[in-house]
């Protein structure tokens, strides 16, 4: 009887011990999982920071390159063309009317080239864009597009003009430039409409064209090809300044790009 009693106690104690072992194992699994999740979160944050830094660096390099090109156009090509025009102006008059006409045409062409290059130089120059401000820079771009005579455009501004951080304005402008570039190259559009809405809490920028539209499905499905590269780039740029980038398109119905930037009390000044 006593032996049985001891055995029952032994089984009882062992069973209780095993229950504690089981609870211990469950706690260990939970703790390990929690740590693993924390590690994953930290890794995600680090990855995001790394990507942002990388993108920032890429943009800085790109801006520097554009600035260099702008300076080269202004200082070298512009000067060379001005010199060529000066030479033509200082040419002695001739009785040969055909030659005279050619010289006149050449002078006009050179003048046009100088104006176009100056416009291009300004458009590429980071400092100039930042000095002008986003709205004026977009207007300037639209004027340049209008000069080509192929696409009509209009711009509607709602609310009172509000300057943002220079870096944000520059990034927004580069997105707008990329959008215009896409419209000119691929959309086959007749009109471009730009709408800027300055609200108290946000800035909304809508660019709409009436072109042939584009199928965005491959991009939405994450297919990695050159088609989506520019759009992904715009998306990344918008993300860098915390803006919401949306693109919608209807085949033969045009494309719309919408950028919403929420204000974070960082408006520099109201004009």
């Amino acid at each position: 009887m006593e032996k049985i009693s001891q055995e029952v106690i032994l089984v009882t104690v062992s069973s209780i011990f095993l229950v504690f072992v089981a609870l211990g194992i469950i706690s260990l699994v939970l703790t390990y999982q929690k740590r693993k999740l924390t590690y994953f979160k930290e890794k995600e944050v680090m990855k995001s920071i790394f990507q942002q830094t990388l993108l920032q660096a890429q943009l800085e390099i790109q801006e520097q390159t554009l600035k260099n090109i702008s300076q080269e156009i202004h200082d070298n090509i512009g000067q060379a063309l001005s010199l060529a025009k000066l030479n033509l102006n200082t040419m002695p008059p001739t009785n040969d009317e055909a030659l005279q006409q050619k010289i006149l045409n050449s002078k006009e062409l050179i003048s046009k080239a100088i104006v176009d290059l100056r416009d291009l130089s300004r458009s590429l120059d980071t400092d100039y864009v930042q000095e002008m401000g986003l709205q004026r820079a977009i207007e300037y771009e639209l004027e340049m597009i209008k000069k080509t005579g192929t696409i009509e455009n209009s711009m509607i501004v709602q609310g009172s003009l509000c300057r943002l951080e220079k870096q944000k304005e520059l990034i927004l402008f580069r997105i707008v430039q990329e959008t215009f570039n896409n419209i000119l190259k691929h959309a086959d559009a007749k009109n471009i409409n730009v709408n800027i809405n300055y609200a108290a809490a946000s800035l909304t920028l809508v660019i709409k064209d009436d072109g042939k539209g584009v199928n965005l499905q491959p991009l939405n499905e994450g297919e990695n090809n050159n088609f989506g590269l520019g759009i992904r780039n715009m998306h990344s740029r918008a993300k860098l300044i915390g803006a919401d980038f949306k693109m919608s398109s209807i085949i033969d119905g045009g494309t719309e790009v919408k950028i919403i930037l929420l204000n974070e009390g960082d408006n520099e000044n109201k004009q």
Partner: protein
Amino acid sequence: MTIAAIKAFYNERNIGIYNVFLLFNLTIICYYFFKILIFRFKNIFIGLVYLLGVVYIIIKNLVFKDYGLFDSIGFSSLSAITVLFSLFYYRQILKKIDDTVIYYTLDFWIISALFTYNLGAFLIFLSFYFLTDRIIDSYSDSERDLLTLLWGLHNILLFISSIVLIFGNIWRRFRKK
């Protein structure tokens, strides 16, 4: 004599129900872990375990017609299998490289409840037959109380596992909100 015969019949039928319950449990456990676990030889391993269990139950009940005492070997084996499968599951979730929050999943709490109960109950099941077999000739009241105590402990384990499951499920729903 009549009472003894009724008792014997009742006891026999009671053990028979336990044995059917064992088969039922084995089927549920094997099916559940078959759905949950992911490893290379899962089909063969779980299939073999189930097949061995079924063969054991058939031989014990239909061939040997052993309805005399509680099937300690059968139930303790089932407990050991459940513990083993649970450990496989824990290994699986710890090895998994993703950000799934396991304590938000019902499976984790079900398996934790099963694990707690079966690890604790394994020894009780295993010893129950041998202890009963040793005292069957004398079977005094004090000896019967001792075995009842052991069975009571088993019920407490069942209660603890239910607490684990209920607590886990409530906490899971609460945290998800």
